[in-house]
């Protein structure tokens, strides 16, 4: 415990260094901005701005991106409440009660509840993160390539079992990401693989950022252009210090659902592939179930705003836990952060705590600072962000497109990659329209090289004996859980059918 406090202290000192503190402010602002723009979320912000962070040292870069991730969770509520359009998928559940509250002229109360719940959710999860991360990383030090591979299998199985999307399409998306990651020279034999049309450019492979920016920059913008083209109706918000003070007193109405959301959000967030969106939806559902007045949910119950907002903030921190300690991202955004860490020359995984303590503890310290900064910026700048929401897409779209193209070029110095990005972006748009989930592909292209390496390392060290995965207890456990998760949709469908058949007879 003492070592944690000392390390955290040094992390906090690192976080308040002038450059880092400035980047926390910049990140929170950028996050609030992308969060509140309909259709854009933390994942888009992180993907589009990652190339820009090569300007600063890795610790500062991750602090900026983590603050952005954080800010986006706060920002999502702003458009959910005032426009009735979720600012990001993570804020979908906030619309359920936020919108009716705004229609009843209580947008200010809803925004305040969202900010306070986000703050509590964030604080609870950071404390949990600080307590859980070092022991988990120490435990993970025992992992060999077998365990690494089994964990990655588990991450993909979570998508299949709990993703809730069409299963063959989810599987396709995962496999596509893994195959795209294999383009280029084979890491072990050095042979070129999947060199399409004999183009030498493919020898260097397809970078994960090319895919991530294609999917989340281009594809998502095209999608947003389509969905938000209709006229939006914004609700007026009363802001002012007096109002803020008055609204602060409402806290007792939603404190219970906030606690529920905070703890639930953290633990759901830590599950590989789960992330903030399912956490917020689950938190909303549970808060409604436990409420004394469940019927008022969906009609403007302030607890229905607080529960998902606390959960999505808590989950954003939670999803960083497996990324930092195990090297397995818990959400699409952390998948991109993980890819960024590889570009910065760091090796994600349990060794990070011993090899780069400044990096890890600087990040943790910055999360405490960012939480304070964001809640203050959020409450103070609500009027500004409401004005930003009125910004027409004909101004935002070209800026984002330019950032996507130049961001990809700046990362790889090749025009070729910008073409690939455009093709992937347009393809992602068409696939998404047919309900193909795109997040698994992004996760897979980041984890692909790591998964293949750990699989082949394990098999080389065991001289080709596949039993090596089953002989080791941790790896066996992960594989069994993964198998259970993969078969869960089939089993649950079977049980449902049997129940229906029984009901008929």
């Amino acid at each position, binding site marked *: 415990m003492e070592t944690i406090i000392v390390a955290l202290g040094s992390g906090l000192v690192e976080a308040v260094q002038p450059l880092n503190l400035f980047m926390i402010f910049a990140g929170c602002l950028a996050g609030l901005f992308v969060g509140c723009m309909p259709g854009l979320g933390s994942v888009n912000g992180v993907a589009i701005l990652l*190339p*820009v962070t*090569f*300007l600063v040292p890795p610790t500062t870069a991750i602090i900026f991106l983590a603050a952005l991730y954080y800010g986006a969770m706060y920002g999502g509520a702003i458009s959910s409440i005032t426009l009735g359009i979720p600012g990001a998928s993570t804020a979908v559940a906030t619309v359920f009660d936020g919108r009716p509250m705004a229609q009843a002229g209580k947008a200010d109360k809803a925004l305040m509840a969202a900010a306070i719940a986000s703050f509590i959710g964030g604080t609870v999860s950071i404390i949990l993160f600080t307590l859980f991360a070092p022991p988990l990383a120490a435990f993970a030090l025992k992992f060999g390539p077998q365990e690494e591979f089994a964990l990655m299998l588990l991450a993909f199985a979570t998508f299949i079992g709990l993703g809730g999307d*069409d299963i*063959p*399409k989810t*599987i*396709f998306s995962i*496999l*596509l990401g*893994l*195959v795209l990651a*294999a383009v280029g020279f*084979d890491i*072990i*034999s050095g*042979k*070129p*693989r*999947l*060199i*399409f049309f004999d183009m030498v450019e493919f020898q260097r492979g397809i970078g994960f950022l090319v895919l991530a920016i294609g999917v989340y920059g*281009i594809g998502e*913008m*095209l999608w947003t*252009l*389509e969905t938000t*083209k209709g006229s939006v109706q914004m609700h007026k918000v009363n802001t002012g210090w007096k109002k803020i003070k008055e609204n602060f007193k409402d806290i007792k109405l939603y404190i219970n659902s906030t606690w529920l959301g905070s703890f639930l959000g953290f633990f759901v967030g830590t599950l590989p592939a789960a992330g903030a969106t399912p956490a917020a939806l689950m938190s909303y559902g549970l808060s409604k179930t436990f409420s004394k007045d469940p019927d008022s949910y969906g009609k403007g119950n302030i607890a229905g705003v607080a529960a998902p907002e606390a959960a999505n903030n808590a989950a954003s921190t939670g999803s960083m836990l497996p990324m930092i300690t195990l090297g397995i991202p818990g959400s699409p955004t952390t998948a991109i952060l993980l890819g960024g860490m590889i570009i910065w020359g760091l090796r994600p995984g349990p060794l990070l705590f011993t090899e780069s303590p400044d990096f890890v503890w600087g990040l943790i310290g910055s999360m405490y600072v960012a939480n304070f900064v964001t809640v203050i910026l959020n409450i103070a700048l609500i009027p500004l962000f409401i004005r930003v929401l009125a910004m*027409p897409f*004909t*101004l935002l*779209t*070209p*800026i984002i*497109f*330019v950032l996507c*193209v*130049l961001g990809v*070029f*700046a990362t790889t*110095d090749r*025009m070729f990659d*910008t073409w690939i990005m*455009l093709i992937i*972006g*347009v393809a992602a748009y*068409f*696939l998404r*329209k*047919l*309900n193909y989930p795109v997040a698994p592909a992004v996760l897979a292209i980041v984890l692909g090289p790591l998964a*293949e390496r750990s*699989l*082949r390392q394990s*098999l*080389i060290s*065991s*001289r*080709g004996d596949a039993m090596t995965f089953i002989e080791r207890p941790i790896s066996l456990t992960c594989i069994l859980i993964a198998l259970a998760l993969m078969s869960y949709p089939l089993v649950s469908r079977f049980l449902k059918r049997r129940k229906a058949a029984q009901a008929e007879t």
Partner: protein
Amino acid sequence: MTVRTAELIMAIVLFVMSVGLMANVYFGDLVVGWIAGRGPGAGMWPFWLSLGMAGASLATIIRWFTGATPESRNTDPYIASETIFLVTVSAVSLLVMLILMNVIGTYFTLVIYMFFFVRILGNHSWFTTISMMLGTPLFVYLLFEVALTKYLPKGLPFFEELFLVVDNLRYEYFY
């Protein structure tokens, strides 16, 4: 085209693509099987994963015929006619931007691109248009060339030389 038709076409395209990937690995002089005592060959990972992709696409095709996916029963248009324009223009404008970057260079392209999006598509005022036309290249220059020290594409030699004036000025006065 309805969503239903699009679902089938997409699944078939993806199936063919997966088989193409398998063929690429198989005929690409890579071992797709197991090397005794050494584990998987270099082509095993992409080959069997592509086979899985083909299988997943086949499952989607079968589910289309049985009407199992919501998309296979949806007869709404795949892309609504009022959005076709917006989405197509955005995608094509990106394509043109990439082509122009190779010909007239990044900065001249940005000026034209902003004019097109802000003035022609967005119908914004001349003040906004000109601010964006000048502001974006300036911002890009400062961020990418000055701060990140990246040399963005400058196009054909004629345009590149035109732009070198700016670089020369910068090196003369700031370094």
